[in-house]
């Protein structure tokens, strides 16, 4: 038995292995120094992620390498997505330092769960088989359930975690069921194998489509698309703001990778079928997300609905890859890279928006109502300007990155012939503009209710400024990020 064992090539998975090993170090360090020097765990976590980034960069050769019996892939796309993920997680950690410390939540388990969730995302991003995908997804989700409930005394947090867990388990079940159907039809769990089987046309179509429906439902749950969006507002609202920030940023990249790997890499042969499903969900998400956000008074809930609508726009790009059953590489790259660009842009904006909420919070006070933004321009013109940039960017107003993300997606949709859908999407973004404008109105036109000085630490201030300026700078010079997204996708398809 042992003689048949071939040592897999470990290099493509080097960042994952490094992160896993380091997580043990964090665990031990927290065990020994946890009570006295809490910053050590945080520091080590950040160092771990920087190390991962370095390893990813060093081993990134632009080649597509499969390993672990074709279950794990390392390509340019995965490298890029992982790098953005590390960045998002590091930013989240810096943003959350003071907030967690003020509330006594900066315990070792927080950093460990963050690391394991990150590991799960990395596995999802690099998954080349349905099993690996599922493994990564569960690792990420279970860590996130724990994170949502990290404040054990908060009933809202516990409730949110419970909801998240039950619905998430259901979605995982759906996904697994869909995977098994497709396995039954194609006889393969590998993404390449499934694609091959579809290409040869041996698989039975009804079984495939049946499985596809479940698969799409699972993916839609993770992306938070209507009608699988129910968990988003409650979880965003109930979780501690730093955890909300975490859920609202890096996992979107992993979910994007999951959608891309499963639907495009594996089931491209069924694109005509899943495009229709995505189309309906995209329009519903854009519509419901934007309409429901208007009614919110809690900024975390507002951003939750805004997240739903943003994922709707992203999917608009994802579903525009194939025109009328005709496969054309240019259109496909155009569409999928626009969705990738949208996701990256959204993560950047989302981090900034939640960073603002953290900026205004302080020990014993959660600034999570819209009212807390009143008169911010009087309290701090600089950060009001940062929030202005982020809000207008989310609304899709130039010169900010959000505009070019919408632009790329709309271009892909119109190119695929979905002009009417594009018109509907822009009309809803007009409605969406209203609630982003309202935040700007609160900051600039109203007088402050809360006149306490902003006490956030220098690290948060600096990062938030950089974040806001990045949203603006990548809007004035959008070319670089767009090109990176396109290249990463083109070289990995």
């Amino acid at each position, binding site marked *: 038995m042992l003689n048949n064992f071939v040592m897999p090539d470990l290099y493509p998975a080097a960042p994952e292995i490094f992160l896993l090993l380091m997580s043990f170090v964090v665990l031990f360090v927290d065990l020994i120094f946890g009570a006295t020097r809490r910053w050590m765990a945080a520091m080590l976590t950040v160092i771990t992620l920087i190390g991962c980034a370095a390893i990813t960069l060093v081993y990134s050769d632009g080649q597509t390498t499969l390993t672990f019996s074709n279950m794990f892939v390392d390509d340019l796309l995965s490298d890029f997505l992982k790098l953005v993920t590390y960045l998002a997680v590091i930013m989240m950690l810096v943003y959350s330092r003071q907030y967690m410390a003020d509330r006594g939540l900066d315990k070792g388990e927080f950093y460990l769960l963050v690391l394991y969730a990150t590991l799960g995302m990395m596995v999802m991003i690099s998954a080349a088989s349905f099993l690996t995908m599922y493994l990564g997804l569960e690792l990420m989700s279970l860590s996130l359930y724990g994170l949502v409930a990290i404040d054990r005394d908060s009933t809202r947090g516990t409730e949110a975690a419970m909801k998240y867990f039950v619905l998430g388990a259901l979605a995982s079940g759906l996904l697994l069921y869909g995977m098994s159907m497709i396995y039954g039809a194609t006889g393969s769990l590998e993404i390449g194998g499934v694609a091959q089987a579809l290409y040869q046309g041996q698989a039975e179509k009804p079984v495939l489509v049946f499985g596809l429906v479940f698969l799409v439902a699972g993916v839609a749950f993770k992306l938070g698309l209507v009608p699988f969006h129910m968990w988003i507002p409650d979880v965003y609202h109930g979780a501690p703001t730093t955890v909300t920030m975490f859920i609202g940023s890096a996992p979107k990249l992993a979910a994007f990778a999951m959608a891309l790997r499963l639907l495009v890499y594996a089931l491209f042969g069924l694109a005509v079928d899943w495009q229709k499903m995505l189309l309906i969900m995209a329009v519903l998400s854009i519509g419901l997300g934007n309409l429901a956000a208007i009614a919110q008074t809690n900024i975390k809930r507002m951003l939750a609905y805004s997240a739903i609508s943003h994922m709707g726009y992203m999917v608009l790009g994802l579903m525009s890859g194939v025109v009328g059953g005709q496969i054309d590489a240019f259109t496909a790259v155009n569409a999928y890279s626009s969705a990738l660009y949208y996701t990256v842009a959204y993560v950047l904006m989302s981090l900034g928006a939640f960073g603002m909420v953290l900026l205004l919070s302080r020990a014993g006070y959660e600034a999570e109502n819209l009212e807390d933004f009143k008169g911010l321009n009087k309290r701090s013109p600089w950060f009001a300007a940062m929030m202005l940039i982020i809000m207008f960017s989310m609304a899709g107003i*130039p010169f900010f990155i959000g505009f070019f993300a919408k632009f790329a997606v709309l271009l892909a949709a*119109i190119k695929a012939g979905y002009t009417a859908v594009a*018109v509907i999407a822009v009309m809803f973004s007009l409605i969406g503009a*209203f609630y982003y404008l309202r935040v700007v*109105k609160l900051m600039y036109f109203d007088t402050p209710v809360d006149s306490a000085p902003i006490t956030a630490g220098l690290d948060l201030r600096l990062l938030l400024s950089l974040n806001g300026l990045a949203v603006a700078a990548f809007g004035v010079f959008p070319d670089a990020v*767009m090109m990176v997204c396109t290249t990463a996708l083109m070289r990995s398809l």
Partner: protein
Amino acid sequence: MNSQLLSLAIWVPILGAVPVFWIGSERRTLVRWLSLAVAVAGFLVTLPLYTGFDATLSGMQFVEQAPWITRFNVQYLLGVDGISMPFILLNSLITVLVVLAGWEVIEDKQAQYMGAFLVMSGLMNGIFCALDGVLFYVFFEASLIPMYIIIGAWGGPNRVYAAFKFFLYTLLGSLLMLVALIWLFLESGGSFNILDWHQLRIGMAPQILIFIAFLVSFAVKVPMWPVHTWLPDAHVEAPTGGSVVLAAIALKLGAYGFVRFSLPIVPDASHHLAPLIISLSLIAVIYIGFVALVQTDMKKLIAYSSISHMGFVTLGFFIFNQIGVEGALVQMISHGFVSAAMFLCVGVMYDRMHSRMIADYGGVVNTMPKFAALFVFFSMANSGLPATSGFVGEFMVILGAIKFNFWVGFAAATTLILGAAYTLWMVKRVVFGDVGNAHVAELKDIGSRELLVLGLLAVCVLAMGLYPFPFTEVMHASVDNLLKHVAVSKL
């Protein structure tokens, strides 16, 4: 010829706004003088555009080209022709006046106020010289942000409503335009160059759709009846400077859009739907003229008069003859001066009385003779008195309209009566007569700063009325070229 003049016109005010924001509102004197310096510098860099302009050429001049978003072949492509160049000068001049007008009046957050206007000025210059569809759109939409803040932060009691209405109305139009721009990009095989689009052949059905998308966008901005309702609200609530920029420049963006996009890109649809536009324009001229007549709020009256005057502009464009189009362009510039002056005049009175109601005034001439003289002069220009700039544009458009169709010209000519009626009646009630009440009796005449601002505008209005040749000269070749282009079917 490659020069950086247009980039300077855009970026000098925008970058100049950064130190203004940075200094903050505590150091008021410094902020004011710095803002003025930036605004004047912004105006000075645009002067070579006029002196170096070759009026015999119809093509784009001062062209600058650089790749911007290579992924979608979007270029940083700037250039002006005789149609757009005057507006850059007008805009930069108005910015100087607006800075002066806000000198003492704005007490709250003055640095942000000045900075917002400087940013706005640069963005609007960008709109007038962008020759790339995306670049144009980006400037077009970005200019909403400072105006939204200006109305909302320094406006009147109902400012929040007005600011939202302004923003959402304009966004509605521009989003449809974005779809049209992307469609044109794909149809032209991957170019966002507006001049390429001018040569693009398009079928009738898509032409109509594109025309409608552009129409919604530009009609809101002009504003044309029936999508004009945001304007009176925005004008009434905006601070004086905001009203001035809105009326003098922002409204021109919509009209400019027709000339740069609708007419040359979809000429057949423009011809086909011209009766619609002409009808809407005449409704604006006549119906809105009557609406202006019954206003009790001076700012609202001038706002309606703006809509009515802008009706003349759209009318002039869609009768497709040289004198009509040139008249419309002259009318745009003239309206830039006159409406700015009118709003500044109301601002002068409002600063003293804190009322815009006609009924609260009466006999202002007794206490403010210098001001009254200027106000009456601008009112005459607003009602189109010969020898003022208001007359030239209106007269040319009416001539063009009569050439096109007698009854259209006849209907348009009623503005000479209506315009005179609502403007002069207001002047009569506000300026003349006995001193209306105790507040009016205490009014102080305008100081040298206000005199300088209004005097400059008066010179412009008079110069343009007496000798419009320098203005029409530069636009002649471009308008000629435009009309030749529009006359050729693209089907």
